């Protein structure tokens, strides 16, 4: 019983960060339909920005978090303007190849800049964990969970309640009509990609101090993010959120009670099972965006 409680708490906390990774990608992959291989690199970028501000510049932890997200949004906007804008209307293969190139280039740039040695980032949280009977959880992870939840709610509100969100949904539903209605298409493309990238950087900046920052940290994050988006249904923010938590619970309980050797396999097993029954994913309605 104690073990189950600990597993549940672990899965909730892990699920929060998975969901955050998922909603960033669902904006780009789900709504924009760009197979974004740089998502994991933006995650790593967020973690390294955190390292730079907190460990090298000595900035306040919370301020560093904000700066890391802002620079992530900036890098995302740059990728969109420099690479993707030229490819608008190109077929999916071309875009995919360019994004694979960008992924490799970014990862090697990280390695070149920061070297292969993993970097740890210190936090203002107490070193001893919060202990509640048989359960114990670190303050840092609790903080990540709270911030991630807030960001998920904020993103949902932005997409569904704000004018910018409406313009985003309109643009990717029917670009020409949106343009005729006076939506600035280029700005919306850049904003959507930048927002998704900013969320990935936020996930990296939040989790960097929990784990460590290292150049290839984005690979696994990318893989999980794609799995979550497909599980939840392309373009659905509630879907990506649910997908993140389902994946986390599956991994925790699978590793705890079946076999830890198949921890990552468990999640994918579930995805296959769900896609067999619901090929569009859990939450996506046919061809509906947003």
């Amino acid at each position, binding site marked *: 019983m*104690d*073990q189950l409680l*600990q*597993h549940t708490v*672990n899965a909730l*906390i*892990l699920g929060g960060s998975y969901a955050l990774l998922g909603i960033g990608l669902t904006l780009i992959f789900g709504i924009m339909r760009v197979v974004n291989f740089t998502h994991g690199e933006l995650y790593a970028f967020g973690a390294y920005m955190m390292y730079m501000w907190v460990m090298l510049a000595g900035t306040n932890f919370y301020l560093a978090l904000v700066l890391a997200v802002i620079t992530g949004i900036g890098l995302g906007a740059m990728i969109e303007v420099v690479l993707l804008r030229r490819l608008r209307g190109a077929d999916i293969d071309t875009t995919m190849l360019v994004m694979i190139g960008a992924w490799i280039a970014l990862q*090697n740039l990280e*390695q070149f800049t920061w*070297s*292969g*040695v*993993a*970097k*740890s980032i*210190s936090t203002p949280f107490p*070193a001893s*964990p919060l*202990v509640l009977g048989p359960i*114990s*959880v*670190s303050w840092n*992870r609790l903080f990540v969970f709270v911030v991630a939840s807030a960001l998920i709610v904020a993103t949902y509100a932005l997409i569904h309640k704000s004018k910018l969100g409406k313009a985003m949904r309109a643009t990717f539903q029917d670009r020409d009509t949106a343009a005729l209605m006076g939506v600035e298409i280029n700005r919306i493309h850049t904003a959507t990609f930048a927002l998704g990238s900013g969320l990935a950087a936020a996930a990296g900046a939040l989790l960097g101090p929990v*784990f*460590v920052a*290292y*150049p*290839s*940290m984005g*690979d*696994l994050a990318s893989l999980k993010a794609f799995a979550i988006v497909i599980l939840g249904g392309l373009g659905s923010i509630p879907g990506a959120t649910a997908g993140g938590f389902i994946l986390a619970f599956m*991994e*925790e*309980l*699978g*590793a*705890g009670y079946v*076999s*830890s*050797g198949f*921890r*990552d396999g468990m999640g994918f097993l579930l995805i296959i099972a769900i896609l067999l029954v619901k090929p569009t994913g859990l939450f996506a309605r046919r061809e509906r965006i947003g």
Partner: protein
Amino acid sequence: MTRTVSGMLAGLALALLAGHAAAQDSIKIGVTQPLTGAFAASGNYVAQGAKLAEEEINKAGGVLGKKLQLVIEDNKSNPTEAVATAEKLINSDKVPVLMGAWSSTLTLAVMPKLEEYQVPMLVETSSSGKITTSGNPFVFRISPTSEMEAKAFAPLFKTMNIKKADFLATNNDFGLGASKEFSQAAKANGVEVGVMETMDPKATDFSAQLAKIKSSGADTLFVTTAVEQITLILKQAKDQQLPQKIITTGGSNSPDQLIAQAGDAANGTYHLVFFTPWFPEAVKNADVAKQFVALWNDKKFNVGGLTEGFRGWDGIHVIAAAISAAGKADAAAITKALWDVKVKGINGDISFIKQGPSGKESAQNVPSVYLIKIENGKVTRQ
């Protein structure tokens, strides 16, 4: 325009000729290490140690009157790339001997190529038993096998009062091999074996495994993986308040890096290492160890890399001794000579014994193994 082009071509030709001439005056050694990817940090340290050895040997006049020249290739922590680097080094650089390839999985991937091209390889880090027991006569390993490590540790089960032990290992040849050997040694010493858990080599979150281990009732947890994952495990074990004392095996656990990165979570943990740069006077060949530490610090290399870097130094010195004994830079002659080398290494006296099926034995060194403990952010001898 034409003049510029022909001028450039002439320059290029000259450069090529010069390169060729230099090549004839040197003996090449091929090195394949993970310089990028998951094991990048460790691979770079080994390469740095190897380059220090190259520099020192060349300063002392080289080998057979020629300069040693390391050709270092990046195997990207990827078995497919490891094979590609070995083929490139053998076919295009024409090296008569290799050193590599850090992880057991990478080394095992390269091994069939050694037989195919009949080129020997010095294995500096890998510890999976399979490497020297699969009948590949071109393998010369200076690092200890997991079995040797477990054997060296065996008397400590009693000394450290271990009654029940859990195991957590990275899911590859290195981790699974170590878990198997250490759990067998535990059983042989009357220690109960609790849960045996694994983790993906790329994983960063071990909460599920640790939650299971937390409630297993064991007093000790053996962890086998590289330093990056160990750092995270120590931090997360503290978060979940694991009651077990943690012992890491495999020697790729860089205690300095753990102290720097896991901080308080590293205190009270034990680590099996193959070189103790904190007290170089304590090792068998203290003069060599001190010289190496001094050279490493002169270059301002990362102190946390010493426990990996020494492997590169020892490996290149063993290869240089074999080339010198062979009298020529020829793969067959070097293979033969390697069997008889005796080198004063940082990890003690290096020489090879036979392992594996008879007639096709691989060569294995019997290195020293040390247990250290981290206390108050300092490394202490055990």
